């Protein structure tokens, strides 16, 4: 059973790191979002053992496993933009599919090319 007090403490820690990331983003006027800065900070703190995994594990796991919940309310906002799926909007869907196929194909191809070159060197 998850301990609620532990989970809440973990979420508070995540929130504080998010606020620090946001503060850094605003102070340095960075163009990447504060939450992404926070993610990088947490990764560095974990890798350098400054934050122990056990300090944040349960709450973080819960967050990652139920990530979807947090973006349902904003997604529902599409209710105000339903006209996007008519006329020119359908073109947008086509563009997204073409562009996505390019991302998948090219990123896969590039990493496969590098790994095959490495494998050849090891042989």
């Amino acid at each position, binding site marked *: 059973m998850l301990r609620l007090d532990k989970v809440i403490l973990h*979420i508070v820690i*995540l*929130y504080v790191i*998010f606020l620090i990331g*946001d503060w850094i983003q605003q102070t340095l006027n960075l*163009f*990447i*979002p504060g*939450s*992404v800065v*926070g*993610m990088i*900070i*947490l990764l560095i703190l*974990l*890798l350098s053992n400054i934050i122990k*995994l056990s300090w*944040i594990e349960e709450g*973080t796991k819960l*967050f*990652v496993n139920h*990530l*979807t*919940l*947090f*973006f*349902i*309310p*904003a*997604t*529902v*906002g*599409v*209710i*105000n*933009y339903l006209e*996007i799926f008519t006329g*020119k909007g359908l073109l*947008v*869907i086509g*563009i*997204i*599919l*073409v*562009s*996505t196929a390019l*991302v*998948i*194909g*090219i*990123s*896969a*191809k*590039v*990493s*496969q090319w*590098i*790994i*095959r070159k*490495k494998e050849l060197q090891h042989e």
Partner: protein
Amino acid sequence: MSNLLIGITAIVGTLAVYLFTWKLHKKIVSPLTLPIFLGSIIIIMILAVFDIPYDTYMVGGEWINQLLGPAVVALAYPLYMQRNLLKQLIVPILCGTITGSTIGVASGILLAGWSGVDDYIIYSLVPKSVTTPVSMIIADSLGGVMSLAAVFVVIAGIGGVIMSPLVFKLFKVDHVIGRGVGMGSGSHAMGTAHSMEHSQLEGSISSVAMVLSAIVVSFIAPILVSLLM
């Protein structure tokens, strides 16, 4: 009804719909039962049937929305758990992800620009290959619309999973690392779930590529937008 009561109803209702679709998706595994897809549709239908404005719903929804930031921070966890894989394969994964993401963002901006859609739609589709919480935040900071960004992410996710066998054939990709990087970079969490069905290794690589591409796109999106628009 007081704002507090409306807020609590919206929060409890969203939680209930989410838990219902989450359980359903465990029983019936399909893109159509994904909580982001089915859950959002159920809430949209409830709002439409009872004629509730979105702004009223967001009195409570905003509270859940506020947790997007810490949710993005939490993504450091899967990356940390895969740190050994990350150390071993950082070069091929990062090179693939950077190239793919750059082409994804650039092709989105250029194709949408040529098609003549409004700028806010272009800003919303720029981060489409990135996991939803990060995508929404990137779209928002560019001047796009969060909810459109979320919908475009779902289209890229489901579309990418469906197109992937054909794409891999076309690009002659058969290596497990290539496939994992492709699915994570192009179709985020949905691609990762799809990769997991093939193998644990492909899924883990995909999850690493997903988080790295979120970081990469948040760096390159503002640059490419100012260069290409």
